[in-house]
């Protein structure tokens, strides 16, 4: 992580582009938490990249005054990992929605988890497809009626936290967009964590599936005396879906692929074509 030498306020991380979200969108809370965490972390804007996919939430990089990579639907993770492998000096934060990370890009999530490359992922989960106007998403509850499930959703509901824990993710947390202070603290912890940090954020869509009132009453802070090194216990908490826990579920420091790769290059020499071709003489 590269820090600035000048003092920056959350406002300094705000770009000139105005958010495109509906009034009351949970993503505003997430964006504010990101501004705050960036200021608290003193992230150098010129050495920070916010990478996203496609969707309402994936517009976020445009609203942040750092480098940004607004990629394709589902592709934020491979972009972010390639970037971090090639440029381990950068702070790389991947953001997007439940469609990005749990549907079209779900395959990438598995491998990002296994590699443990030092990036931070913030998933804004509204349990619906907002940008395309309200179809069902992997995190929609079974039976959910939408324009694409007029007879009710027949599939099971995806459990992001349990999935991340089962994939050996080294930092697993959940926040709520209406608790931006707590969320900012989790993002700071995630960025400071060496490895793949997965932060699942409940971020309601007021227009197509308003879960705000439900979540306001059901979210439950993880108990203060909870042991964040116990994966089995974390999975137990993750399976509680009626009263979703928020806070840090699990954290474990282990070698990251980007660090390992850059240990390999310590002995690197400049390429010499004449020397290289000797093998083919």
């Amino acid at each position, binding site marked *: 992580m590269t820090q*600035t*030498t*000048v003092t*920056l306020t959350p406002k*300094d*991380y*705000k*770009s*000139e*582009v105005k958010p495109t979200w509906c009034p009351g969108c949970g993503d505003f809370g997430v964006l504010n938490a990101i501004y705050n965490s960036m200021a608290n972390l003193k992230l*150098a*804007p*010129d*050495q*920070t*990249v916010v*990478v996203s996919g496609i969707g309402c939430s994936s517009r976020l*990089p*445009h609203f942040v*005054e*750092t*480098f*940004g*990579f*607004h*990629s*394709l639907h589902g*592709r934020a*993770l*491979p*972009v*972010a*990992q*390639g*970037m*971090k*492998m*090639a*440029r381990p000096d*950068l702070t790389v934060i991947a953001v997007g929605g439940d469609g990005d990370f749990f549907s079209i890009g779900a*395959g*990438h999530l598995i*491998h990002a988890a296994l590699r443990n490359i030092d990036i931070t992922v913030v998933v804004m989960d509204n349990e619906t497809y907002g940008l395309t106007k309200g179809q069902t998403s992997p995190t929609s509850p079974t039976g959910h009626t939408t324009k694409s499930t007029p007879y009710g959703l027949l599939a099971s509901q995806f459990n992001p936290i349990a999935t991340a824990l089962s994939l050996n993710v080294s930092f697993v947390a959940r926040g709520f967009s209406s608790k931006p202070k707590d969320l900012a603290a989790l993002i700071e912890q995630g960025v400071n964590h060496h490895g793949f940090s997965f932060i699942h954020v409940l971020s309601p869509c007021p227009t197509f599936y308003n879960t705000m009132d439900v979540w306001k009453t059901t979210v439950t802070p993880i108990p203060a005396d909870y042991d964040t090194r116990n994966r089995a216990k974390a999975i137990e908490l993750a399976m509680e879906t009626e009263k979703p826990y928020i806070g840090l579920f699990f954290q474990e420091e282990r070698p990251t*692929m*980007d660090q390992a*790769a*850059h240990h*390999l*290059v310590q*002995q*690197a*020499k*400049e*390429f010499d*074509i*004449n020397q*290289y*071709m000797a093998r*083919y*003489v």
Partner: protein
Amino acid sequence: MLNEVTIRIGGESGEGTISGGDILALAAARWGYHVYTFRTFPAEILGGPCLFQVRISDQPVKSMGDYADVLICLNQEAYDRNISDLRHGGVLIYDPSDFTPEASDHIIYAIPFNELARKEVQLYQTKNMVMLGAISGLFGPPLEAITQVVESKLSRSRKSNPILMEKNMLALEIAKKYVTEQLSKRDPYRLGTVEKADRVVLNGNQAVVAGALAAHCGFFSGYPITPASDIMEAMAKELPQVGGTFLQAEDEIAALAAVLGASFGGVRAMTATSGPGFSLMTELIGYASMAEIPAVIVDAQRAGPSTGMPTKMEQSDLSFALNAGHGDTPRMVVAPADVADCYRLMILAFNMAERYQIPVIFLSDQSLTARVESVDRNVFKPMEIMERIKFSENGANGHNEAVGVGAAEHSYPRYAYTASGISPITAPGPGALTYVATGLEHDEYGHPNYEPEDHTAMMEKRFRKLATAAEELPKPQRYGDEDATIGIIGWGSTEGTIQEAVDRARAKGYKVAALHPKILSPLPDRAIRDFIRSVKTVIVPECNYSGQLANLLGAKYGLQAIRVNKFGGIPFTAGEILRAIEEVS
């Protein structure tokens, strides 16, 4: 005695046919000869027919040869499949314990490979060494040239298994002794001593890797696929040694996404794949074109469609490479003709990607990936490296600290409208001005913008880079007669074969010339138009069904070409193109 011979070995995959052939080619090349190999093998790991062919000559070799001069069949199936490709009066070698050949005008040597390996050497796995010993005894190169290669190739296993090495050497000697004492040589093929030259011996994929490293590639991401996997494997090994990083991706979509992430970070980056993987990359080619991120994508074409024939040659991805992606997406396409091109054009591809901030597709093919050629070592020299044009304004460069933030002073016209279409760019780092890359249409500052004027101007800007490049990039050179009546336009790995056909046609009195564009996007319009105008008839030979270059030349220049298409999975021979020349004359 002839100082040129084309030897084909047909056998079963897994019994050392290909590795034996490789040793033969390398030994001949190190001994001072020019070599050019061709091979086919099944996609399966073990079993199935495979063949190896090497053309060895004291003159530079441009194609694999029309016919085999010498055919070695290690089983009945190899005989059945290959005997029609043995020239009249050529040499057939077989083991009488395998099968009995039909009567023919060939010179036939029966050599008991199986028995020599089993009884004399007492190790059946040395059968390919027995074969090499026989080849050495009958045609050359001398046994010392072969043993040197065997020693260098097996040096590691020798330490752990000295008996195997001894047996290999014994097999070579026993077979050589056998053919010298038991056979009376009736053929004219005998490779004499030639002067040694400063050459290197390698295949197309190996040259691609050398080119990528010489082009300062700093990041590779890919997914295993035949016939491109060995590029990935070599990059995985070599990149850390020159300070680069490597990521084996979970699929080809992720591979190109990772490449674009690295490239956004200012690192020269590439991937390598074949048709099926290239199909998956399509969405990101569009993205790279729209967001103007440099990337080099090697497509080692194989026979399609779909999974097709993974180990067979075809030139059938040209239309796709030129057009892959929805919307109007400028990209650049280069196609190497030979092993030397794999090096030179790889460096050019990186330079094009970086200079024009565009995806560059490098269209190799299966035959070229595995084709071993002896190449003048001077080809592999350091070449000019072009970098992306960096944005620098008011201290955007050179300060080792973050600049102050705030919208007004922090954003810059990343996608500035310029005469060349090239907009100066920044990469993250101390003091760099920030921007957001996006696949949405955007204004000069990279902000999403859907205004008609903006989309029109931005589209024109992106395409303007192709026009700029067409002026700046090297032009193809005409080969053959200035006053030719027959012209041949080809692309990709067929160049040498076409040139050999041109040579042979001219020797017969035909007026022929060839043009072989290596850059297929942007096409060198003037050079192609001039060439078409200069001849009466144009032949377009392509290893594909639909005539993809012919279609393009028809659409762009109104050319009604004579199409010569071959799509069985095997490259052209010069004789086939020569026949086409004779037919139109």
